[in-house]
């Protein structure tokens, strides 16, 4: 039950990121001026009939965020009660702290009229929360417990670099969104008809950095997935996320292009945001699986009994009758 619930929490976090993308894409961030209340109402008592215009997106985002926050509280308590690995329990505490911080940042950014720095931090921390919930879902899954992993240092390094660069690219994307630079370069694939923009200002620089970042991410993903297909093509736990990563990358570049060409249509723009998060988490899953053997070493070296259990696929949940 715990792995399924953890997967549900991770999925709900992705939904929350999509809802957050809709808020920014529709310019609804300040349509509810107060926080944590909504126009003076307790959040959950706000009438549905009054969810009109921008309020629909902002209030819906708050409701989903509260639900996700509650689910993460349950997940953390569940891990605390049932999870034998201390580091996994700690992941739960970190996720809880992150989602609370995320909620506070969301409130502050409304009360302070969307300052760029806070809004960018809010968008960037959302990805961390998604990474944390997804990691918990992964490491509590039966497959994680069962699989032994591969010891390929090259794959470990390249996949980790790919994940880090994807995250940096998402932060640049958040900066672009919140500084209003999304259409600073209005054409695609060129920039004002050139490969390199002929004119520069801060917004054009941010936008162009995001495009260069996309190219860098694409090269790294191709390198990582190519390595997986060439060296570990028979290992499903590596091959499947590699295939998914390629598919999501293709979709992400398409959505990025359509965001510019559609003059930032709010649905396309929001799909670009959530798909970016899925690219990050898929790369993270691949990275963690590439490091699977090192997790077993870590557990063994830290003196945890589960270290032996992990290495020998003899995982016994806390409280279960072995």
């Amino acid at each position, binding site marked *: 039950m715990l792995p399924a619930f953890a997967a549900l929490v991770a999925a709900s976090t992705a939904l929350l990121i999509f809802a957050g993308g809709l808020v920014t894409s529709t310019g609804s961030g*300040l349509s509810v001026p107060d926080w944590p*209340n909504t126009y003076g*109402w307790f959040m959950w*008592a706000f009438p549905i009939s009054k969810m*009109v*215009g921008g*309020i629909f997106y902002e209030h819906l985002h708050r409701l989903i965020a509260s639900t996700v926050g509650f689910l993460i509280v349950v997940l953390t308590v569940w891990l605390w009660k049932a999870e034998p690995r201390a580091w996994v329990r700690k992941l739960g505490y970190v996720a809880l702290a992150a989602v609370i911080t995320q909620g506070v940042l969301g409130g502050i950014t409304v009360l302070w009229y969307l300052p760029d720095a806070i809004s960018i931090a809010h968008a960037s921390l959302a990805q961390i929360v998604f990474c944390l919930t997804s990691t918990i879902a992964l490491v509590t899954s039966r497959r994680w417990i069962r699989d032994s992993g591969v010891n390929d240092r090259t794959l470990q390094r390249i996949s980790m670099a790919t994940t880090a660069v994807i995250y940096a690219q998402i932060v640049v994307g958040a900066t672009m969104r919140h500084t209003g630079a999304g259409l600073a370069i209005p054409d695609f694939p060129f920039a004002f008809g050139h490969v390199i923009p002929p004119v520069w200002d801060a917004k054009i620089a941010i936008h162009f950095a995001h495009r260069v970042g996309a190219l860098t991410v694409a090269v790294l993903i191709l390198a990582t997935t190519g390595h997986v297909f060439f060296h570990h093509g028979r290992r499903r736990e590596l091959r499947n996320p590699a295939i998914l990563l390629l598919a999501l990358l293709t979709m992400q570049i398409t959505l990025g292009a359509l965001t510019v060409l559609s003059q930032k249509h709010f649905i396309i723009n929001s799909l670009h945001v959530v798909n970016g998060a899925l690219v990050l988490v898929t790369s993270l899953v691949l990275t963690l699986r590439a490091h699977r053997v090192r997790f077993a070493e870590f557990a063994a070296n830290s003196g945890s009994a589960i270290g032996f259990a992990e290495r020998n696929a003899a995982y016994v949940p806390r409280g279960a009758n072995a």
Partner: protein
Amino acid sequence: MTRLSLAVCAAAALVIACGGGSQNQQQTSAPAATPAPVAAAVDAATAATVTGKVKFEGTPPAPQPIKLSSDPYCQKANPGLTTETEVVSADGAVGNVFVYVKDGLGGRTFPTPAQPVVLDQKGCHYAPHVLGIQVGQPLQIVNSDDTLHNVHGLPMVNKEFNQGQPIQGMKMTHTFSTKEVMVPFKCDVHGWMNAWIGVLDHPYYAVTSTDGSFSLKGLPPGTYTIEAWHEKLGTQTQTVTVAGKESKDVQFTFKG
């Protein structure tokens, strides 16, 4: 504390939180404390007038219909609502242009009117779309609609504010502490709703009507820089010199 008292406290907190605001709520954002200057009265016997028209040369931009489907009330209350940026008549007269004395008044100070300027949210748009006000003069913002609005002022010099008006008939009062041309207003609930307010430290301003005309009355004799501001067409300035009791005509022409 017993469980019963905790439950009572929680219920009380819920009742308070669920209030949704008072219909007669009034909020005032106080201006920065500045010493009131002594106003020197303009001699009415020698006061001059600057009148004129604002015109547009070229193909006049047509107002665009606004999609109101995100709020059923707006759709019902004002189904034919169009954008208000392009107010150009068939003969090229431009409305919603803010015309004001930009320079030339020297160190003169003027009394602050106590009468409020009203900005109404009616039929899911701001009425008027462009207006002027003096520093310290109350701006009364009213919600005449049976839907929720948020009043979001985005000045660069004055302090930004964002106030919800969820109930029909709600009013709030705001004052500006510093002159600023122009202060944009928007409703984030209804993305099409916007207004512009020119904040000045003197009373010599006007907003052109649909025939493009304006009038700046009661000016002391002197040489002035007059600016015409339009939210899309930009700004134009002209210098004009008026003697006592003189009336001069100034024409502004924007080109498309």
